[in-house]
């Protein structure tokens, strides 16, 4: 087996430079690579393009990178939880590319799978389709969307092994598996890192071929955005 382990987040992100394209797994704050975001915040980076379904909240997740003005452009589907994002966007300090969520997921999947472009019905007849190639298939209009890749993809998994195989938990899976395939360098942080051979190959969600670096993260906060309970 090829060993992918690095000691910690700081070592994992050591060669990330300004103006890179970065992908971050997660939906809201669920399944985000908390350790890598913290390590990136310690570096003096600017001009980043960040691909992430959401933009964190004002004081957690990618929101912290926005606050530090590290980000030039966000590529996301929904950014409603972040007031600082909205402020930077409306004032023109931040570029944003808002993409339908399924299109974003498929663009990343396609990028990682060697598919340069595909046709989707999502956004046909809307401003999302402006400037894009349109084609009619069986009487319905579709627009062409291109595959997406990144210099670095940061993903968070529940369990992983030293060969880079990953298993996700609950809805923390979301964008992580596709992003793992689309990073030129994919960095996985996991809650529990085990020796290769420990995880059942039948249960692997992301095969280690997609992962270049892996480490066991520390101090996961796993902040909840909407704490909703029933009385039981």
């Amino acid at each position, binding site marked *: 087996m090829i060993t992918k382990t690095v000691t910690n987040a700081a070592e994992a992100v050591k060669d990330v430079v300004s103006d890179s394209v970065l992908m971050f797994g997660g939906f809201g*704050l669920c399944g985000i690579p908390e350790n890598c975001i913290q390590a990136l915040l310690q570096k003096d980076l600017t001009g980043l393009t960040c691909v992430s379904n959401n933009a964190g909240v004002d004081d957690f997740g990618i929101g912290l990178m926005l606050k530090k003005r590290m980000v030039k452009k966000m590529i996301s*589907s929904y950014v409603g939880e972040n007031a600082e994002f909205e402020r930077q966007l409306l004032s023109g300090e931040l570029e944003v590319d808002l993409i339908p969520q399924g299109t974003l997921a498929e663009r990343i999947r396609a990028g990682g799978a060697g598919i340069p472009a595909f046709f*989707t*019905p*999502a*956004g046909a*007849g809307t401003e999302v389709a402006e400037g894009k190639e349109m084609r009619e298939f069986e009487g319905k209009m579709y627009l062409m969307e291109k595959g997406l890749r990144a210099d670095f993809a940061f993903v968070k998994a529940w369990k992983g092994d030293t060969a880079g195989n990953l298993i996700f938990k609950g809805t923390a899976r979301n964008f992580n598996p596709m992003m793992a395939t689309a990073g030129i360098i994919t960095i996985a942080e996991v809650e529990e890192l085990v020796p290769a051979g420990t995880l059942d190959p039948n249960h692997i969600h992301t095969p280690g071929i997609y992962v270049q670096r892996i480490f066991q993260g520390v101090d996961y906060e796993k902040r909840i955005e909407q704490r909703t*309970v029933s009385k039981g």
Partner: protein
Amino acid sequence: MLDKTQIAKRIAREVKNGQYINLGIGIPTLVANYISENLEVVLQSENGLLGIGPFPTEDKIDPDLINAGKQTITMVKGSALFNSADSFAMIRGGHVHLTILGAMEVSENGDISNWKIPGKMVKGMGGAMDLVASAENIIVAMQHCSKDGQSKLLKECSLPITGIKCVKKIVTDLAVLDVLPEGGFKLLERAPGVSVEEIVSKTEGRLLVEGEIPEMVFD
């Protein structure tokens, strides 16, 4: 006039046995509470779950288990988890039978606007554009008029569009209406105490009223 709970209750009557259903944020989320226990249905959450259960009790909260509104949830027996690409393959591929979502405006040909107010609100479309582009049945839950009294059932949407010719039915605080395949709204039911005349006056788009319009009945 219907309150939000009654709008959700009325929409729940549209649910059919065996359906896979995606519920949007807001009133649509409430619909889950009123689906008949005699029906076998599965709720899809586009962040990667089939089989949304009730909110957890305090001791069962799991930060790794949320719905598309980022609320903590549980899973029902027989649930399945998947990634976002698979989730939208289900949606775009037409495997989800019914989509219920909110709207800012609906036009008489079934266009929907619900994602952007230029210069004011830039939250993004999330999964709404994928959902409305593909679902075979789309029901909209919304108020009939905006806060300043403007009709939200229009000839043409004034706000940026989320999807074209996709809405099939609308349940508002005043009425239940179909969007006809050839265009135009058709009045089906009116809310308790609301007259046909009031609905006509508050609907800007073309409205078809045929015969007696029954008043909705709630338990």
